């Protein structure tokens, strides 16, 4: 396609604008965490002149953010492990077995994935307290399954459908059981989809805000997002620590994104909310 000069200028001009639009808040997050308080509140500068790690030290030592990071990790990893196993079984059952009501369950699963938790936090709160799980990490591990399992099942259904069943049928002709064929043939072939669903369920659990806000009330059970949101109202000159905390909270997600980008794109293309 031939491109006119005006067109190219417009394209790159807009691209530059968008990059700037995304970069400035990110730049500000990082540099705020690195500037001493004096440079944040008195002696303003666009670039850090005396970079320091004191905010990271303070958010870890004084605000004990590591406790909250540990809470978030425990909830995220448990939720992810349970989700991947349960979703893989369910998706396998729906895609590879034939019984009545199968498609219907698929539909309910998608419906639930789309139903926001804002609709359910009040009854879930009442249920969690009546089970004696109020203010525990268990309440989060349990209730997070209500959105991670539907999402990952829906994604894996798409993935499993894209793999021809003939491969498993051949294995079964050779004497493999149906479950054996799933473990030896389908799951290894679906590895990218499984990785993607693990990444998504961890991310969903790590970022979840409303239920964690409602269910947990003290430092020993708070996850990272709740802890940071509590710090906002606590103190006025808190922004250095908050941005340091925000960076620490973004690191696991950033790592997963960069490791998993390939898998996530593949997994998304096969199932889920295909663009």
């Amino acid at each position, binding site marked *: 396609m031939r491109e006119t000069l005006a067109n190219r200028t417009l394209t790159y001009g807009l691209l530059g604008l968008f990059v700037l639009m995304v970069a400035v808040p990110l730049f500000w997050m990082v540099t705020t965490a690195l500037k001493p308080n004096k440079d944040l509140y008195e002696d303003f500068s666009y670039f850090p002149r005396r970079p320091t790690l004191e905010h990271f030290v303070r958010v870890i030592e004084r605000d004990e953010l590591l406790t909250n990071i540990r809470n978030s990790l425990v909830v995220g990893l448990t939720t992810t492990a349970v989700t991947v196993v349960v*979703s893989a079984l369910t998706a396998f059952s729906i895609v590879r077995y034939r*019984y009545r009501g199968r498609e219907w369950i698929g539909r309910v699963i998608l419906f639930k994935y789309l139903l926001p938790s804002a609709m359910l936090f*009040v009854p879930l709160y009442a249920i969690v307290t009546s089970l004696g799980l109020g203010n525990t990490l268990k309440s989060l591990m349990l209730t997070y399954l209500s959105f991670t399992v539907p999402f990952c099942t829906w994604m894996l259904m798409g993935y499993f459908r894209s793999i021809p069943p003939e491969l498993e049928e051949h294995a079964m002709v050779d004497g493999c059981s149906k479950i054996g064929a799933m473990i030896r043939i389908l799951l290894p072939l679906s590895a990218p989809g499984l990785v993607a669903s693990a990444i998504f369920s961890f991310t969903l659990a790590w970022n979840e805000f409303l239920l964690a806000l409602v269910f947990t009330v003290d430092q020993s059970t708070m996850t990272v997002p709740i802890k940071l949101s509590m710090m906002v109202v606590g103190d006025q000159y808190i922004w250095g620590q908050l941005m340091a905390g925000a960076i620490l909270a973004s690191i696991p997600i950033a790592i997963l994104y960069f490791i998993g980008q390939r898998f996530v794109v593949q997994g998304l293309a096969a199932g889920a909310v295909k663009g």
Partner: protein
Amino acid sequence: MAMRQRSLTVDVPIPETVPRRPWRRVDREQLVGKAMLLPTVLILVGLVLYPFVYSIWLSFSDKTIGSAGRFVGLANFRYVIAWPQFSTALLNTVVFTVCAVAIKLVLGMVVALVLNQQIRGRNFFRAFLLLPWVMPAFVVYLVWRWLFDPLSGLINYALLDLGILKTPVAFLSERSTAMASVIVAHSWRAFPFFAISFLAGMQTIAQELYDSAQVDGASRWQQFRHVTLPGLYQIIGVVLLLSTIWTANAFEPVYLLTGGGPSDATMVYTLLAYVAGMVNLRLGEAAAISTLFLPLLVGLVLAVTILLHKKAEA
């Protein structure tokens, strides 16, 4: 059989040669298949269906935490509807949703069009512009709260520096700017979802269509209007519906940026339900607020469910 043929991508019709198995084996197999569904069914019943029904019961009761709650008929609904805060929240939810979705749609489309050009380093820019969507939402809103800070925030400093403002503006705590600021922060976070979905759609449109449009002398705008847009109709529909659901139910942007203030200028219905249930401790009223939004939401969700299901089966 229908299922099996559909999942294949080959054009050759598959002869039905799979041998019939003895009924016992089929029966056992079905049982195993259903058994594998059990955990998910338990989760759906225990954590979705039951709370859903329970929520509707709650909205007809005066339950608080610690008390059992009696049936009070429509009292909660009457109270909530007469509550001035509820009308404010309803209006704000609509304003927030409509404005934010419109901005995300336009911005997402322009970004997708730019990324769809032949530019150097396209993969890098695509990954980079996706960052706001990848970052945890709570991180994004905390960063924007700091950007909007009236005393030391970057936006005030920059605008004063450039001479656009004479005095600092408390963007998040003035009635005239609070809602707009929340919308800006939310749009920044969520536009990449639109962009990436539209971009994926644009890449499935055949180049020949553009070539023949060019031969016919179509301008850039005409190509967009008559080739790109029609090719994207379905994706635009799905993305708009999904985003409307998510935006109308957003809690974090408002809770983390303004807490619903100043004097309810940014109060949306999710936050109002939170305040009624968790701050005022009146679960019945909180449930009534959610229940009032239920018909609209279920309608939207059903629409997307049907659209996506059709697509998945196609």
